[in-house]
Structures are given as C-alpha cells and as structure tokens.
C-alpha cells in the first residue's frame, strides 16, 4: 500500500538500492562476434607489463562497489596454490585478459569446456559484458591463457572470436545470471583449445548442495594473480540473502576465500564437471565466494556457444 509522508522502511531502501537492476528490455538474443585477431598478435599485445597492469574486473552496477584495501590475516589460507597448472586437472583453467581502452586493462579467470567446436571458455558474465541495459561488450583484446603461471603461457594464448552471456545478465545485470561464455580461436601453434588442454564437462540443473573445487587467478591481496589457486573442497553454504529479490534461481555461496581476479573461475564437481563460476564476494575477510546457479539459462548459453563455428 502506498502512503505519503511515511518512512517506507525496506521498501524505500530497496527502491534506492537497486535501481536499474531488474527487468529492462532491449537485449539482443545472442552474443557477438569479435573481429578476428591472430594468436601471435594477441600474444604479442599481452606483454608482461600489460598483464601486470591488468586489474580485476569490477561491476559498477548499483548495490555494488569496488573492493576496499587488500585483505590480510586468515584470508586465502584455503585458496591453495596449484603446484603444476599444466597437469591435466588444472590446465583447463586459465587467466583472462581484456583491454578496456582508456580505462586500462582488466583480468578474470575462466575454464575450458568440452564442446563440438573444442573452443568454449566459461567465465563470469561481467568478464565479457558489463551487464544491464547499458552494458558494454568487453571485446577488445580478450584472451584466454590456460595454465598461466608467472608470465608463462605453456599452451599459448587463445583470442576470443565470439562473446555471449545469459540473456538476463545482458538485459538486467541480475547477479543470479552472471555467467558468460566465449568461443576462442586457435593458439599460436594452430591448435584448438580442446586440442591443447581438453575441457571440463558441464552440468546444469543439479542440486546446489555440492562440493566444489573452486579454481581461479585471484589478483588482489594477499594474492598476485600470477599463479592458479584452488579451494579443493569448497562446501555449499547457502544462498545470499540479497539474491532473493532478483529474478531467477538463487545464487550459491561456497566456502572459499577468493579476491578480485578470481571472477569467472570454474567450480568443478566430481573432478571433471563445471557447475559454477565465481561471481562476487563481500569485502570483509569472512566472506564466502558467490556464484550464479547453473540452471536452464546456462544450458542455453552453452548450446549457443557450441554452435559457433
């Protein structure tokens, strides 16, 4: 009921807090094709200095702010460094780099997924599109570097040739759908992503209560983004209370202390199947890692990505 001259409690606060987040029309039905760039050219562009300058991607949507000072203390004790990222279970995960024009360079994490075209990478939606009605495609110099470690690119660089996200992320920026998929070109050796590193399976519409191996390349303190890290057995903790008002399936919280740069990192179940990606966390040290539930929309996204040639 609407009344004048009264303090409107949560309803008014929600009004102020979440503008431009839900239900906006005008999104296109599919992803976009990226102007072709050779792996050699992409690899040359991403020099060590540019990689070092790449900052974790943040979302500027209402209700979210950039991270605060680097965290210390207990954070990260469960996000273990992967000794050999070229091992079979780890080489499918990698770092993502993208140029933002005058805003510099950004980074995320991603996971290679098995598909007919052998070229699909899954990541967070905000790693390919800033989300919402005014969202921008992050298509400039977008590359996936599997098994990246201290500047080494053991399987080369895979430049993007097609970007896509869930329809809901593009049209509303709803964090419950913050998932993206990218089809990449060949590396410097002319290999497809699948030929070079293989890929994880992918599953959707599973029960949220799973044990996940959370992978990623966190770049904010206490991490430096130079090595792959993994929480080998992150437990499902529940749903973020703040995701209830957003449309779609409730997002998931898992016990893993990640920081910026880990966005898009794959959540693996049963050792071989992708069933989530890192989307966000809160700034305090005890924050879990949050990711969108893999439901039908993710299935549709995967279907679109596999059809790209």
């Amino acid at each position, binding site marked *: *009921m*609407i009344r*004048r*001259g*009264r*303090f*409107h*409690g*949560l*309803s*008014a*606060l*929600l*009004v*102020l*807090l*979440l*503008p*431009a987040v*839900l*239900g*906006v029309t005008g999104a296109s039905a599919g992803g976009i094709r990226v102007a072709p760039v050779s792996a050699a050219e992409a690899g040359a562009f991403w020099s060590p200095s540019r990689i070092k300058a790449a900052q*974790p*991607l*943040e*979302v500027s949507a209402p*209700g*979210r*702010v950039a*991270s*605060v000072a680097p965290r210390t203390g207990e954070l990260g004790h469960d996000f273990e460094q992967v000794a050999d990222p070229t091992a079979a279970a780890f080489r499918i995960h990698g770092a993502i780099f993208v140029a933002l024009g005058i805003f510099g360079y950004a980074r995320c994490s991603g996971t290679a997924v098995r598909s007919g075209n052998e070229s699909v990478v899954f990541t967070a939606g*905000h790693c390919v599109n800033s989300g919402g009605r005014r969202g921008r495609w992050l298509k400039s110099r977008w590359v996936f570097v599997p098994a990246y470690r201290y500047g080494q690119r053991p399987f080369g660089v895979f430049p993007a040739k097609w970007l896509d996200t869930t329809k809901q992320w593009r049209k509303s920026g709803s964090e419950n759908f913050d998932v993206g998929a990218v089809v990449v070109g060949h590396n410097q050796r002319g290999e497809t992503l699948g030929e070079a590193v293989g890929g994880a399976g992918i599953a959707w519409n599973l029960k949220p209560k799973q044990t996940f191996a959370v992978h990623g390349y966190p770049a*904010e303190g206490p991490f430096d983004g130079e090595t792959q890290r993994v929480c080998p057995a992150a437990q499902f*903790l*529940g*749903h*973020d*209370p*703040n995701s*209830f*008002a*957003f*449309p*779609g*399936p*409730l997002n998931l*919280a898992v*016990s893993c202390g990640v*920081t*910026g740069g880990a*966005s898009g990192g794959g959540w693996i179940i049963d050792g071989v199947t992708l069933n989530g990606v890192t*989307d*966000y*966390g*809160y*700034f*305090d040290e*005890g*924050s*879990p890692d949050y990711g969108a539930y893999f439901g039908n929309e993710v299935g549709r996204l995967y279907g679109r990505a596999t059809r790209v040639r």
Partner: protein
Amino acid sequence: MRRAAILILLASLLGAAEARAASGSEVLPELLPPHLLTEVGKPVPPQPAFHSGFTVSRPHGYEVRVFTFGSAVILEVLHGSRSHLSATAYLARGVALPHRLQASFGRFGKISMRFRVEGKNVKSLCRFGEQLSLRHGSYVGDLEFKGEGGYLSLDLHRAEGSVVTPAGRCRQHHRFLQAEVERELEALSEPTSGLFAVSREGVSTTSFLGRARRDRAFFLASREETQGKLAIIRFATTNASKGPHADEAATSARVSPPAPFHGTGRYRAAADGTTTWSGPLSVNFPGAPRFPLTGPSFETFLEAPF
C-alpha cells in the same frame, strides 16, 4: 569482483534519509521505479506489476507491510518511528504477480491472497518519468504468520491494498534526486568519525555502523541471514547527538547509541595491529531482541577526524 555489504549502502541511504528527515523535506521515492518489475522466475509475465501490497497497522504495536519486490514477496515488520526504527523483513520466493501474492515463509507461515479491485477509480501518477495507474482494492485470501517466539501473530483474510502498474511515459524531472546527491557529496567533505563492525558466519552477516558529523550522529545495525528458501533481513536505525567517541590516535572508541540499541561497544587497537570490539552493545530487532553486536568474530574499522 568484490562488493561491499548491502548494509553499507543501506547505511548511507539511511543517512541520507535521516538528513532529509532533519530538513523536513519529503523526498524519499514512494514507489518502486518502473523497471523493477515483478516477475515469477520465468517467463516474465506480459503485464508485470510495478508494485503491489498492503499494510496492516499496529498489530502488537508493529506495522506490517506485505509487498512485492522483484521476484520476492516481502513481509516487513516495523517498530518505532522514523528516527528510531527497527524492522525485520522476511523475503520469500513465490508468486509475485500484480493481483496475486503467494509464498511460504517457512516455519513462520504463508500467504495466498488475491487482489480485488474496488470501484472504478484509477488514480494516475507520474514517478521517475513513468505514468502509473494506481488501483485501490482489497487483498482477499489467507495470511498466516507467527514470528519468532510468537512476538507477532497474524491470521488475516482481508486487507485494503493497492496495485500500481505502468502505463506509459510521462514528463517529470528528477531534480530532487540530483539535489540529494549533491548534498551528500558535499557532506562527504565534512569531517566525520565512524565505526563499522561486521561479522560473518557463512551467508549470515551482522553489522554495526556508527557515524557522526557535526553535532549529529547516526547508527545502524543489520542482520542478514537465510533459512532455507527464506531470507531474513533485519535492520535498526537511530539518530543521536553523540556519535562514536574516539581518541585522537584512533586507537580506542566507545559508542552508546540510544534505543533501539542497548549498552556500550568498545573498540581498542593494540600496538601490534590487533583490534578488539567488545562490550554489551545489543539491539532490539523485531523477533530478535537484545541481538549482540560485539564479539571476537567482528572485523572492525574506525575512522576518526583529524
């Protein structure tokens, strides 16, 4: 990507609300922006409601509001006045359609009500550049709710309410919002002292904020948690003349906010960088009286003017 707790934003917004209350103006938007359309998962209904719900005044001394927001049906219990407010909101997923509210609040109860238009009077409003149609009527059905420990018990079958639906565009300028933003930005340059403490257990978060500027102080406490398919968000705010009292070196501080808060919280920073946040500070939320706001699990930040 990392983001701040929602309550930090709530704090700043409530701070703005408090400032507006002090200035005597009424600028809080009273309606949800038109793009915050109600929907029930998928697919999006072809004619989504803009806002619907009703208010039940003063059962057990509380005000209860039931309304839709996004995909949630929210039952919000408020206590106190705008300057000393505490509230608990129960957010449930369910059917949040323009003329139908249906959701389970878990062990607390459930709602299944339909909206019936009464009369043909349709009021036209212009908010955020959107033309809106406001229809008054009654919600008819069942609302059963029993809060924690029975602090509130509702068994309702009829309530007067309203449904607001979008009806095109209209001309309206948002100068008041611009003025508010400018006022807040200006205020940011003023010396302030503040203390923020946050504790998290899994997806549950408790936070406390005390902020003082000039001779006015503002306090906020919040608790967010989920219980299965139900989210519970509690918050309390109050204004006072005295804010966090910190020493010049920002190594210790003490806060004693008025009701709905109780007791005192003490912050101390040791030379080795460790901090403690202790004391009997608590807050009365509807359904969670004397909720503790201090303890070793809190991460605490102190800001002192210099």
